[in-house]
């Protein structure tokens, strides 16, 4: 059970804070299986020469499992209505912003705009709001999308297995749900009210989605809220747990850095570029075949540099506003986008790096 693994993680975190362990990078990298303690030591380490070795190792493993390929997807914000009061989010219910929800016709408009660029994988997003964006609304958006995209992934509120089953029957292929932080106490503080308040229900989302029939899941933390080592450590163990329990499901991880928009929330922990790279490399070295997504929150320089070094999926042409692709008047943003280059430009960068931009990652039309 994941509960037991996270408890054990706490014990190891406590222990390792008392005594610093030396990292013998060559020895750890030569191992068939890296232990929890070694994993934590790799995350805590700060030597440049070790980071370089981790990067090179990460590149080799990524090539072995994923080849010279970067998969592209585009997020589509359906609505910014939200009943949760997450303290770090631009769409929080506490924020007095204009709320917009796309109609059926508008969803089709947006999709047509996105389709001009060969994109074949779509991530549909809403806030946590079953009143303004009820299950039927999500279902309709999935049904529309499946005629245009081979991969349809939702990042909405956590659902029941039976609901996922219905969505899968109607074209859903994957579910993304960020835990944001794996520290239960901090989680409760940051999510004072609303549907997102329940830590454990959210944590079990991926398992319910898999039982509902999706073939890929993504989990993630929002770096900057908590001690990043604790969050990344626990997220890696969560991903490993899912990989072991459901060994033929594709598991992806993501750890965007906090970039707030329109609110006064300040990051509590600053994550340097070097730390960020370390988290990507260590995740790859430990989890091997996990998919790693990098969002447009990161700078073009960093995103370009990381092609080949661990990441497997990139969002492209991302607008974080509702109606951002076709509407003239859009909502405010959920977060700040650093990489605002168009899809064509990103494709060109991937090619120049000697990689193949891949659009299609699932059987067209689905197999359910």
């Amino acid at each position: 059970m994941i509960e037991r693994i996270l408890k054990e993680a706490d014990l190891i975190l406590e222990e390792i804070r008392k005594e610093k362990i030396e990292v013998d990078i060559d020895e750890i990298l030569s191992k068939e299986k890296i232990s929890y303690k070694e994993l934590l030591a790799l995350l805590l380490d700060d030597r440049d020469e070790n980071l370089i070795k981790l990067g090179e190792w990460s590149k080799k493993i990524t090539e072995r499992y994923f080849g010279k390929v970067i998969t592209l997807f585009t997020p589509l914000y359906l609505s910014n209505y939200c009943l949760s009061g997450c303290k770090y989010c631009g769409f929080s219910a506490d924020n007095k912003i204009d709320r917009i929800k796309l109609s059926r016709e508008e969803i089709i408009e947006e999709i047509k705009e996105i389709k001009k660029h060969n994109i074949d994988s779509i991530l549909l997003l809403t806030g946590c709001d079953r009143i303004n964006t009820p299950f039927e609304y999500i279902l309709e958006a999935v049904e529309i999308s499946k005629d245009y995209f081979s991969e349809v992934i939702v990042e909405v509120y956590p659902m029941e297995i039976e609901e996922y089953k219905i969505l899968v029957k109607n074209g859903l292929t994957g579910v993304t749900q960020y835990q944001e932080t794996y520290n239960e106490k901090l989680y409760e503080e940051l999510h004072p009210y609303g549907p997102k308040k329940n830590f454990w229900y959210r944590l079990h989302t991926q398992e319910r989605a898999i039982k509902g029939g999706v073939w890929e899941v993504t989990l993630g933390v929002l770096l900057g809220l908590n001690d990043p080592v604790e969050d990344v450590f626990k997220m890696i163990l969560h991903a490993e747990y899912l990989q072991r329990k459901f060994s033929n499901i594709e598991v992806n991880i993501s750890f965007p850095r906090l970039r707030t928009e329109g609110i006064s929330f300040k990051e509590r922990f600053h994550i340097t570029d070097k730390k960020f790279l370390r988290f990507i490399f260590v995740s790859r070295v430990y989890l091997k075949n996990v998919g790693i997504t990098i969002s447009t929150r990161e700078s073009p320089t960093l995103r370009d540099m990381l092609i080949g070094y661990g990441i497997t999926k990139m969002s492209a042409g991302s607008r974080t506003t509702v109606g951002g692709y076709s509407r003239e008047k859009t909502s405010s943003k959920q977060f700040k986008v650093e990489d605002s280059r168009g899809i064509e430009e990103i494709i060109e960068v991937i090619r120049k790096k000697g990689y193949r931009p891949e659009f299609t990652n699932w059987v067209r039309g689905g197999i359910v």
Partner: protein
Amino acid sequence: MSLYIGGKEIKNRLFVGTGKLPDYSIIERLYNEIQIEVFAVAVRRINPEAGKGVSILDFLPRNATIMVNTSGARNHKEAVKIALIGRELTDSDWVKIEISGELKYLLPDNEETIKASEILVKEGFKVFPYISPDLIVAKKLEDIGVSAVMPLGSPIGSNKGIDCEILLKAIINEISIPVIIDAGIGKPSHAAKAMEIGADAVLINTAIATSKDPFHMAKAFDLAVKAGRIAYEIGLPKEKEYAEASSPLENLIRSME
């Protein structure tokens, strides 16, 4: 000597996977300049509506043999559906059944693979099941009527080449349909070894696609596969633990009329 397989005569025993290639435009060169004839293509990568120069279908030479694969399938039902979609999209009836039991070592689910093979053979496909090297499973598949079996050389990630040699040899020696060794082959010498022990062909993906120079690496594999095959057809001497001088008796007998 050519290989007769799946209703076709195939001259080049090196089959190439396309999923990890940095650029699909290399496929045409592999076909024209190295005479690679068989290309494995994942159905999940085919988007028939993609614009020109994007879909892999645009890059496959017209006379090449396409082996569609069912990667992503988790059970026999999904594999069958993917195979049917693949045939529709490519017009090829060659299907590699790949049912992931597990993604880290990429070990196939042999049990589900047998079930899918049964159905797809009846549907008229030329079936190429990817399996863990298990002789009994290979025999069952032969009975069902598959075109070849594709056991893995070693788990992906191990890069150890023909690490399951004893199990592969058992399959090669005991069944009458072709054996194609798939996965785990990291360098040309591994491919040569596979051919030396009697494999009928090898399928290479990662080792070529992720090389710094995929075209020339394919060339190297091509030469290795050819070398291994020639050596196998001639017959290789048995390896000995120590040098053995001819005995006086042997010399005497050999000198007799």
